[in-house]
């Protein structure tokens, strides 16, 4: 009936439910009625495209946006963006934001007691290259307290935002760090049923991108929704 190649549904259990009561803010902000299942039309399989004109040169390096160096351990965060068919997602926008090394965001609504860092904004963006690879230079963000429950602390994390080729491929997620003892207690990290899916949000320490005397490397690969084969592609399969 439809000749628009559909993006696949998310694999069961790999995505959060909208209502996850341990994350208190979700209780009054999640829909109570079932979502209306709908096929993808041309509207959903298209989306904004991005180019060099959208990028501030050097915006991949969050340690060089001010006169001095930010406080904190320097890290390189890099990885590859593919779709579920393993195809590299080239020249797509990747945006990140994060707290400083003390666990404080440069935001009027972050009234935490940790200090701001005059040399750190916490915003970065870049395009993936022809292999789907991206790379950021930043500092390791600090853990920070929040008001979700008594003595609640967010594990260290970096927010990631990606578009991919279509409205349907949009992804916003958070990258965590290996071995963080707070992960087990974080209602946001734990909002997803599938343990493997959760664990793919944890970056891996990476010697290959660790620079001697300079910075530790962490690898974080990202997978966007892939499509079912089009009828044409299907016909060529044996």
């Amino acid at each position, binding site marked *: *009936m*439809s*000749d628009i190649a559909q993006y696949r549904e*998310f*694999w069961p259990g*790999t*995505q*959060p439910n*909208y209502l996850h009561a341990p*994350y208190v*803010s*979700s209780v*009054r*902000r*999640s*829909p*109570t*009625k079932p*979502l*209306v*299942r*709908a096929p993808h*039309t*041309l*509207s959903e*399989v*298209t*989306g*904004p*495209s991005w180019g060099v004109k*959208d990028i501030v040169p050097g915006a991949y390096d969050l340690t060089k946006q001010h006169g001095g160096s930010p406080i904190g351990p320097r890290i390189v965060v890099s990885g590859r963006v*593919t779709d*579920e068919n*393993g195809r590299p997602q080239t020249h797509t926008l990747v945006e990140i*934001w*994060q707290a400083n090394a003390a666990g404080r965001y*440069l*935001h009027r*609504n972050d009234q935490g007691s940790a200090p701001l860092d005059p040399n750190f*904004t*916490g*915003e970065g*963006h870049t395009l993936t290259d022809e292999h789907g690879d991206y790379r950021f230079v930043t500092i390791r963000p600090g853990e920070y307290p929040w008001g979700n429950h008594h003595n609640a602390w967010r594990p260290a994390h970096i*927010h990631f*935002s990606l578009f991919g*080729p279509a*409205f349907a491929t*949009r*992804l*916003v*997620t958070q990258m965590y760090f290996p071995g963080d003892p707070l992960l087990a207690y974080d209602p*946001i990290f734990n*909002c*997803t049923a599938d343990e493997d*899916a959760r664990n*793919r*949000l944890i970056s891996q320490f990476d010697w290959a991108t660790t620079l001697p005397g300079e910075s530790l490397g962490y690898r974080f690969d*990202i*997978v966007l*929704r892939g499509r079912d084969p089009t009828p044409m592609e299907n016909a060529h399969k044996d």
Partner: protein
Amino acid sequence: MDVRASTWQTVGPFFSIGMKPRYVTDIAGPNAAGQRVVIAGRVFDGDQAAIPDAVLEIWQANAYGKYAHAEDTQAKRLDPGFLGHGRIPTDNDGCFEFTTIKPGSVSAPDGRPQAPHLLVGVMMRGLLRRLTTRIYFPDETLNERDEILQLVEPARRKTLLLTADADHAGHFRWDIHMQGEAETVFFDF
């Protein structure tokens, strides 16, 4: 292939740090063809309290019903400079406003015309993954035959329709209710 799409996480309360450099509230740009419209509204939670930390992303076709995207092979005109992507945060009172042009009709997969519509992605603190919906225009005869709108039970379709501002031509109102009697219809695309 055993590669599964990455897991969504909430944008949290501080998304403006990363998203603000690419906020777009004039979606069409100054030179776009078409009927200019202003769409304003408010986002409410289940207590009918305004949500000051939400962000909307819009995707729409140009006035001829064509998307600025390689996959749109419709024989329709592109509009130079028209992108069709918007990103609009709510303010302290949960209000948002953007300007654009009314999109033309885009073909449905079966070749019939869809009613003019805008796609909306909704993200906020407390929302663990994006919600998606569509905005339709009132008094549009194609609404009655729009494949997607017809999937919605009739009593709830009005949550997707703009309300014309009787005092200002071209101005429309559209509120988002996360819960409650007027809960907005969201699609599982």
